[in-house]
């Protein structure tokens, strides 16, 4: 008994001792690796300074895998080799934890000099003094980014989008051919009115017996093919609020306008596609996979969504035999599409803002993002790609894209037309709060339990509070 107990105590102390030693080892290991990096830096720094004039070191952060990081680093290396003043190091952080990580770095005062920032974070970070003014970046340049791609806070340009994206109407050509209905227009002058859009969608909606909505004997419970789906993610709904003569916010982003009748009616019309017109599948506006659920699933003839889908999902579907086309959005009162694009910013914690801008400007020239652009995920930001036909052809004429004429008219020209309006996060703060709340407020509107009018009026104060960040 006694010896047993002693043995027990001995074992426990041994275990404890080992765990302490274990901790010690770990601690040492960490220390070693911690000291290693400054150590190598210290050995590196004199080497570079002795070889040439001292290079300014800049860190650029991006979202993506380590692999994507090394691709970008390869681009940065070209920049590093092209001049002898700036040395850029790329830091890749996975998308899911990107903003969290940046937040942590900001708290620790260890932000990179420059990097990408999620659309809805730009104005928020500016309002907290975390971003530099980059208005001077393109001074004296021959080609500037499109005007709609500048993020503005209190009149100052605080970032340019790294890519351009606009909202389009995608459609399944085979379904149109089968129903013998003309394709949606790819040119803005001929854009469909909302009613034309709904009428066409009815012709493309079939129930099990092949009947269309409005016909005798049509059964909305057994639809096998839907005519249209308008994406109802909150941020994309702004298109229809503005297009119907209202909007989410005033033009300077200071006032909330979503309570106006025109805005509400625009949103209700989108909901009615499912509720009244019976041409759209139900979607509750919570998941960002609209094109997969509609065009690619082969259940819907027309669907609205962002231009990135050409490269993120439609290119593979096209290879697998999907025959799709692109067209401009229909309109209610005004022709409107939204454009957006994640931002490239210079952080105010940076000690080398000038060098950071120089790198961004170099990096943002399309040649350096060619993989993303030629796959159809990103659209270029610089004007020249939209104005100069040789460049446009270089960009669009490849198998990832729909036919040149169609894409040129429905995307390239559309993006530089007056219809393209910057999404609200280019000039408004707290859009995440506002959109989250709006998404939740509209939840019962899509299923018809309540109307957009009731839902929005009841929550208007909360929406306004969300807009000011005082929710």
């Amino acid at each position, binding site marked *: 008994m006694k010896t047993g107990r002693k043995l027990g105590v001995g074992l426990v102390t041994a275990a404890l001792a080992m765990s302490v030693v274990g901790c010690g080892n770990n601690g040492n290991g960490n220390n070693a690796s911690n000291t290693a990096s400054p150590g190598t830096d210290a050995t590196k720094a004199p080497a570079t300074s002795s070889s040439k004039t001292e290079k300014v070191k800049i860190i650029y952060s991006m979202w993506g895998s380590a692999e994507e990081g090394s691709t970008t680093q390869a681009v940065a290396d070209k920049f590093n080799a092209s001049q002898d003043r700036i040395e850029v190091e790329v830091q890749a952080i996975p998308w899911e934890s990107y903003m969290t990580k940046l937040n942590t770095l900001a708290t620790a005062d260890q932000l990179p000099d420059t990097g990408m920032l999620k659309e809805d974070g730009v104005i928020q970070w500016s309002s907290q003094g975390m971003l530099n003014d980059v208005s001077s970046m393109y001074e004296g340049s021959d080609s500037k980014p499109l005007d709609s791609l500048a993020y503005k806070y209190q009149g100052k340009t605080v970032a340019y989008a790294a890519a351009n994206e606009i909202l389009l109407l995608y459609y399944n050509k085979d379904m149109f051919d089968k129903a013998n209905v003309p394709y949606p227009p790819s040119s803005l002058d001929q854009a469909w009115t909302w009613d034309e859009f709904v009428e066409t969608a009815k012709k493309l909606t079939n129930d099990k017996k092949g009947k269309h909505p409005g016909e005798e004997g049509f059964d909305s419970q057994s639809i096998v093919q839907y005519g249209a789906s308008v994406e109802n993610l909150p941020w994309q709904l702004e298109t229809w609020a503005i297009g119907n003569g209202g909007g989410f916010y005033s033009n300077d982003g200071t006032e909330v306008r979503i309570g106006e009748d025109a805005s509400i009616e625009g949103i209700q019309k989108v909901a009615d596609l499912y509720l009244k017109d019976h041409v759209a599948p139900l979607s509750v506006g919570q998941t960002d996979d609209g094109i997969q659920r509609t065009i690619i699933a082969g259940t819907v003839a027309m669907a609205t969504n962002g231009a990135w889908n050409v490269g993120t999902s439609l290119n593979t579907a096209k290879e697998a035999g999907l025959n799709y086309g692109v067209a401009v959005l229909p309109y209610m009162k005004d022709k409107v599409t939204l454009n957006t694009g994640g931002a490239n910013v210079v952080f105010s914690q940076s000690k080398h803002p000038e060098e950071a801008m120089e790198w961004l400007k170099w990096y943002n020239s399309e040649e350096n993002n060619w993989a993303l652009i030629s796959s159809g995920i990103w659209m270029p930001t610089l004007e020249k790609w939209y104005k100069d036909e040789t460049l446009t052809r270089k960009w669009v004429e490849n198998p990832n894209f729909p036919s040149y004429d169609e894409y040129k008219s429905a995307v390239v020209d559309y993006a530089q037309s007056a219809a393209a309006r910057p999404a609200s996060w280019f000039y408004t703060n707290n859009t995440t709060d506002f959109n989250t709340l709006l998404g939740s407020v509209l939840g019962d509107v899509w299923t018809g339990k309540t109307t957009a009018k009731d*839902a929005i009026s009841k929550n208007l104060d909360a929406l306004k509070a969300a807009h000011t960040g005082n929710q």
Partner: protein
Amino acid sequence: MEAINKPQKRRSRIYSSEARVAYICLIPAFLGLIFLTYLPLFGVLGISLTNWTGLKSPEFIGFDNYIKLFTTDPYIKDSIIATIYFAVISVIGSMIYSLFIAMLLNRKIPARGFFRAVFYVPYVLPAAAIYVGWSWLYEGNFGFFNYLLSELGLKKILFIADSSYVVPSLSLISVWLAGNLIVIFLAGLQNVPIVYHEAAEMDGANGWQRFRHITLPCMTPIIFYNLLMSLIANLQVVTPALSLTNGGPSNSSRFMTYLMYDQAFVNYKIGYACATTFIIFVILAAFTAVLFKTSGKWIYNEGGDDK
């Protein structure tokens, strides 16, 4: 008295040396608890009194976050209701379901081992895969369940797209996932003394009577354990909201943990999220306390207590 006192002295010496071993053994667990549970808890309480966003250094704002939560926050009320609603049906559902299945699996049926595995499998499947699978079953337009309904000529049900169906629909998944409860029940059932059953059978008790008066009382400690674990797990529900509904439609599945996640890691209102966290903690603690308080009344202790 003396006769009792003497051995007690002896016992206390044993106790003290045993206590020493016990304390030594408890040290690692204590350290873990202190540094990974209690200190963070106080940390959360501290941060909840600030307006920390992660970007600028935090400012102390007293109870403003709590005041905001209970006066102007558009989510918290719906969120608490949704969470409790979900937890109550999930817990009741999964208790009944898993006790029932456990009793079936406790019989001498052919391929019993196989069936036990079958019912346990959902519990070990990766959560994301489960929810994607169920989302196809529940989908409102072409989902499998709605396909069946429309084949039967019935009206479609918008399982997770309709604010009044979403919580029961998600609870059903959670009941289906209760394989761990089945295993624990099964272990408990095997400890119900067979002699009681034999005796009752001799006295002419039918199946229901034997269940009601033998199985159930003998199982109460296990039921209590399962109830507690399942209640705590279900009150902290977050995965279905993250993977299926994003809290919608209309807050109907904006569970508290999801709300906290949204505040902290989507909107970066860390201070505010900590206040929400603390409220979640209080609610969990309250439910647990009630369960423990009432447990004495209905738990049957074998050997009994000699009060």
